[in-house]
């Protein structure tokens, strides 16, 4: 296309042809005209990679898994294209390994030692107290861990050399997550759309690409009519499930033919309906969140559908179960592909003016003890 290439034509850099060439470089020629800004470049070879990783895991007694995960992520990230150029994942297996060790030390050890200490100090009652305390603490830490994991992954993601980032320590998010979670049973679930929107708002508003911050316009109102439908259907399903079990038990022994015959298909149908309605709601939520997000003047839109999302979830589940987890990378890639193909980036050409953020993720480790917990549980 660019036959005015100075090297080929032997034309001097200052010639008109070279100037034309320089002008043309402002247009990204890598993608065809009118191609989506965000696109997915096919990812082949994951089946082989899964098997190779399995072999290496076996030989190294499982220790290779962190590097395997890092390589899978690199491949998936590289298939996500903005203006035809790939995202880059710079995380290493070593970081995942360290995160794993930290998680063991920070979570598993106290989980074992704390009940023991209480038991020694107080007696058997200490075990119950310890259980309750640990439950609350872990519910809180879960929200914090979600934030930290996002922050880790974003800081290791870059496009054209520009890094993504998530600002903030995660405690605010963790607190918001837990106090709203406690309200879920109290409101019979009605707080869920508002809660999801609020947490998404917190997350997106702290995200940046380079020096440009994302923005999220929180509004959960549109989600509620769908949520109402899902809530009603789920209520019917729960009632149906309970009545099935109750009648089966009431008829005496579960060994009797008649109850069991429609017990299992009944449960399957219930799961199917639940899966469909849940996918329908999640798709709508994703599309709504996408439309509520901005990056400067760049806008987003989503066009997921309940059917396709349900199909994806179901087939992924089958893939993972049938392969005993070996083909997990395949499922992950399918998820990423679905995400990319159903998300639109509008006005992305304007992203060329984004500049690098000033915080080096490696230097960020010096922020203090909190950064020692910069681990990832993915």
């Amino acid at each position: 296309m660019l036959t005015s290439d100075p090297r080929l034509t032997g034309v001097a850099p200052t010639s008109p042809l070279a100037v034309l060439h320089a002008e043309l470089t402002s247009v990204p020629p890598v993608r065809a005209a009118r191609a989506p800004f965000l696109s997915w470049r096919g990812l082949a070879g994951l089946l082989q990679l899964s098997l190779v990783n399995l072999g290496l895991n076996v030989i190294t007694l499982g220790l290779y898994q962190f590097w395997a995960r890092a390589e899978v992520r690199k491949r998936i990230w590289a298939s996500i294209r903005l203006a035809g150029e790939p995202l880059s994942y710079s995380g290493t297996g070593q970081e995942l390994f360290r995160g794993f060790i930290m998680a063991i030390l920070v979570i598993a050890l106290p989980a074992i030692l704390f009940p023991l200490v209480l038991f020694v100090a107080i007696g058997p009652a200490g075990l119950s107290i310890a259980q309750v305390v640990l439950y609350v603490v872990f519910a809180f830490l879960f929200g914090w861990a979600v934030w930290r994991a996002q922050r880790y992954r974003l800081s290791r993601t870059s496009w054209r050399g520009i890094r993504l980032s998530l600002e903030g320590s995660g405690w605010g998010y963790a607190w918001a997550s837990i106090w709203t979670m406690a309200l879920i049973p109290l409101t019979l679930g009605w707080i869920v759309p508002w809660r999801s929107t609020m947490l998404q708002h917190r997350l997106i508003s702290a995200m940046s690409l380079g020096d440009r911050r994302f923005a999220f316009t929180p509004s959960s109102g549109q989600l509620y009519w769908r949520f109402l439908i899902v809530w009603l259907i789920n209520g019917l399903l729960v009632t149906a499930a309970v009545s099935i079990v109750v009648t089966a038990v009431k008829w005496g022994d579960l060994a009797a033919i008649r109850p069991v015959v429609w017990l299992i298909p009944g449960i399957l149908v219930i799961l199917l309906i639940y899966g469909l309605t849940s996918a329908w709601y999640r798709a709508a939520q994703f599309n709504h969140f996408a439309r509520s997000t901005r990056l400067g003047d760049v806008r987003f839109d989503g066009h997921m559908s309940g059917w396709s999302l349900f199909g994806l979830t179901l087939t992924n589940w089958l893939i993972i179960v049938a392969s005993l987890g070996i083909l997990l990378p395949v499922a992950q890639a399918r998820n990423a592909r679905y995400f990319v193909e159903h998300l639109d980036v509008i006005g992305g050409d304007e992203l060329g003016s984004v500049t690098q953020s000033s915080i080096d993720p490696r230097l960020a480790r010096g922020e203090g003890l909190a950064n020692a917990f910069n681990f990832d549980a993915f």
Partner: protein
Amino acid sequence: MPSTSTHSNADRASASATGRFSDGRSAASQLVLVDIISGHLVIQRSEEPGALAWPLSGIETGEPVTRRSVDVLIHEPGRAGATLFVADPGFVRALGVAAPQVTGAATRWKAAQPFIIVAACLALIVGALAAIDFSPARTVASLIPQPTRAMLGKQVLSTMVPAGQVCNDPVGVAALAKLTAKLSAAAGGKREFTVTVSSSPVVNAFAAPGEQVVLMNGVIRQADGPDEVAGILAHEMGHGIELHPEAGIVRTVGLAVAAELMLGGTGGGSLGNIGVMLANFGYTRAAEREADQHALTILKAAGISPAGLGKFFERMERRTGPKTGSDKGSKDRSPDASGDDIPGLDLLRTHPSNAERLTGIKAAIGTYPSTPALDAADWAALKSICGNDNATKPGQNPSQTRQPRQQAPSPLPRPPVDRPQRDI
């Protein structure tokens, strides 16, 4: 403008291509020309006169390069931030050759290499240990401190012999203690064995951890004389001396619980069904051979003839048929007077090669002076350790119970004529 198709380099592994370059300071990207020249990646930008040269040995790529790669994202060495994206399969192939550290195989090997080396060393060590027939379970078992072993033994005892089944007639217990002490002394005296008698009619005996032996009443009932019981006890003591019960537990529960035991712990809930565990695992042939050898040594040191033990094995073999498994038929089975058929003899089920064992025993008969393991009075006392019903041998007329039994000193004692003939 001359139209050349120099940009479709896909069909040859060319080392030059066009790419998009970002300097890492902003997200703008520009078209550049890329070359691989003498170990460097040479990048010519159109705005700037000079060319960038990145040493190939220092570059990293966004994802590992494989044969299927059609494009590549290259990071500036030292992660200074600049990136170069080339969508040219031929160039990618050439890059894979010129900078092999970016290929998938190289990155995977680099990551896995230390672990593979460690795993290979471990495999060599384990293989070497297996080759010299080293028994890690036995070593671990020997590291378990004595109090823990005693605790394990008590657990087994309480599982296998409920309190109500322990036979504790005082005179019988005293007689048994004499026999046990004699055998323990003969075993070298380092370990003090404790024998518990269970009222179960099963013909079985087993060793439990912590120098414990459990003897079922069935053995005593069908025994011809104290030498038999002594031989069986000596065999089980052999198992105890070699720590077979402890090693068996270690093998069954695995390294984690074994480590706990080594540190003097209780093994937590994993040892709940310890008795069941012990009853379920079978000793290996080697283990049985060791126990047999100990039995002969102990009997010899205690001056007890091994003939009794030999007779026991012969009798058991006749009862249940040959070890090949074919049932000799009910004609060889003789239900005892109380009517219950003696169930499958656990003692022998896992013991292979009966003939071999008998050979060793028969060879030792008569090679040293021997006295009965217990005198007549003690033997009578032992026989009634579980109450008087033991005084009646299966098939014997109960009215003849009061007569003291004659103990013939010859190797294979024949029963006194006044007793009904049994299938010896």
